[in-house]
């Protein structure tokens, strides 16, 4: 399975990268999920709400339609631990806005531009992610 996983991962990664490239070269925008969404939430991005809204509509509807057509019974396999879900959601929301970016903004758009901020952010969220899995999965066993 792992042999197939990396091929799917790479193919999906290429699609993510082409989407980011189009959004930059056509719309002149950075394709950062937390920034596009966060700007609507805290009103800082209301000046171009239609562009943000259209991006988010595509982000919901296209994978939704694909999943419906090709992956019946697909699951995110999310934990059943509600406290963990709420805590993680809050951490991801606050953290990505404090850092001004997430996996797409810092990881994909930042690193590809050799941005020091993007590289430092990516090192820290990957490290914290790894430690979090060790702590909550292996040591505490809550997920």
């Amino acid at each position, binding site marked *: 399975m792992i042999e197939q996983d990396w091929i*799917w991962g790479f193919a999906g*990664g290429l699609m993510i*990268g082409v989407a980011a*490239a189009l959004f930059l070269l056509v719309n002149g925008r950075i394709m950062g999920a937390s920034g596009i969404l966060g700007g609507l939430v805290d009103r800082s991005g209301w000046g171009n709400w239609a562009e943000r809204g259209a991006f988010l509509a595509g982000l919901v509807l296209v994978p939704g339609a694909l999943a419906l057509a090709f992956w019946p019974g697909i699951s995110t396999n*999310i934990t059943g631990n509600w406290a963990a879900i709420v805590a993680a959601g809050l951490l991801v929301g606050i953290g990505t806005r*404090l850092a001004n970016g997430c996996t797409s903004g810092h990881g994909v758009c930042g690193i*590809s531009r050799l941005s020091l901020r993007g590289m430092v952010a990516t090192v820290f969220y990957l490290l914290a992610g*790894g430690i979090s899995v060790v702590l909550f999965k292996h040591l505490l066993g809550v997920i």
Partner: protein
Amino acid sequence: MTRALFAFFAGGLFGAGLLISGMTDTNKVQGWLDVFGDWDPTLAFVLGGAILPMAVAWIIAERRARPALGGDFPAKPEPRLGHNLVIGSVLFGAGWGLVGLCPGPAVASITWGGLGGIVFLLAMLAGMLAAPGVRTRIDRLAAA
């Protein structure tokens, strides 16, 4: 209208890529982050695959005056590493590892993610709403 159309297309392709890569499967993502356990290096292929076309796009952008639909290319931010970049990234990574969803996949999987996905997204939006206040407090602490 054209801007919104291309934004919809970019968002859709992004979402399709997230689905196909496995980024919306929290079990896989947690396995990819599990560097101290039974690590699966697929995440490196996802990130690497995404960075390649985007690196080409940045090179093209440097040679062009404007994006195809007008306006300006985003300016490169000051290479300053403030405390919020580090604190924010650590908090984000902790949450990502805990449940296995980052912002893009959390939105992309909302139609099939069930109640857990909806609660995660709502908590994430609440966190984004609270972030400016948290930032002010951290900055005040840092200045003191």
